[in-house]
């Protein structure tokens, strides 16, 4: 990690809401930053939450590398952990829908809607 340049800015903040781990992602999710998102999802899954929500509301660029990580990390979660993604906008929900990733990962337009779906 020492030589990682500040080429793409991405921050990931984790908070627990009830039994759900919410990862709030901001900035760019591309080839450079997607692996960190994958690691964060995997780490969150180890807290034995009821679910993990990846909130991409503050993401302004999402590449296919990031979409692949969402699918792979979701598949690696324990079966007991539910998963959902929050995104709404031309840079995020649009490409997720265009290549069918939205149907696979469980896409919601708002965090409230994702929380409601996972705690229902």
């Amino acid at each position, binding site marked *: 990690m020492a030589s990682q340049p500040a080429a793409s800015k991405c921050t990931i903040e984790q908070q627990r809401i009830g039994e759900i781990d919410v990862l709030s992602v901001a900035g760019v999710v*591309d*080839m450079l930053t997607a692996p960190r998102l994958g690691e964060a999802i995997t780490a969150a899954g180890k807290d034995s939450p009821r679910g993990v929500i990846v909130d991409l509301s503050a993401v302004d660029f999402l590449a296919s590398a990031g979409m*692949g990580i969402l699918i792979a990390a979701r598949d690696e979660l324990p079966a007991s952990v539910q998963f959902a993604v929050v995104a709404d906008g*031309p*840079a995020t929900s*649009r*490409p997720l829908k265009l290549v069918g*990733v939205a149907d696979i990962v469980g896409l919601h337009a708002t965090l409230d809607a994702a929380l409601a779906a996972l705690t229902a």
Partner: protein
Amino acid sequence: MSRFGKPCTGTRFAQIDAVANPQNAARIRREFADWLARQFTLDATKASDVVLAVNEAMANAAEYAYVTAEQPGAMHVVADYDRNAATLTVTVTDEGAWRHANPATTELRRGRGIPLMKALTDSAVVDSSPAGTRVCLEWNGINAARARA
């Protein structure tokens, strides 16, 4: 590290001989997005589509073109705008051979770049030969920004 092409002037954007790696793909993506915003009046969806499609073409070059080479070779990104036809064409070329590092274990996270490019463009053509790969992306109905300095 990398040699850069001519500065971007008028309705052409060019980055020639950039090393095909993820860092350069990210840098060129940002420069291209800035150029796009200056040159055209695009709505948020179109602007986002164009930048993402160009990113995916560069990502393929950075990820696959030089898998079997000792170090990554070059990629070239050229965008041309035809004012009369209102067409924006972006070509991303490399001199490698797209090879998937390990398709068996990575299929879940890969393979969406080309479908995405096709969905985001009016035309996306991937031309592979032993000499390299050329991705040609095209959008119609692109309007140039009115105000010129």
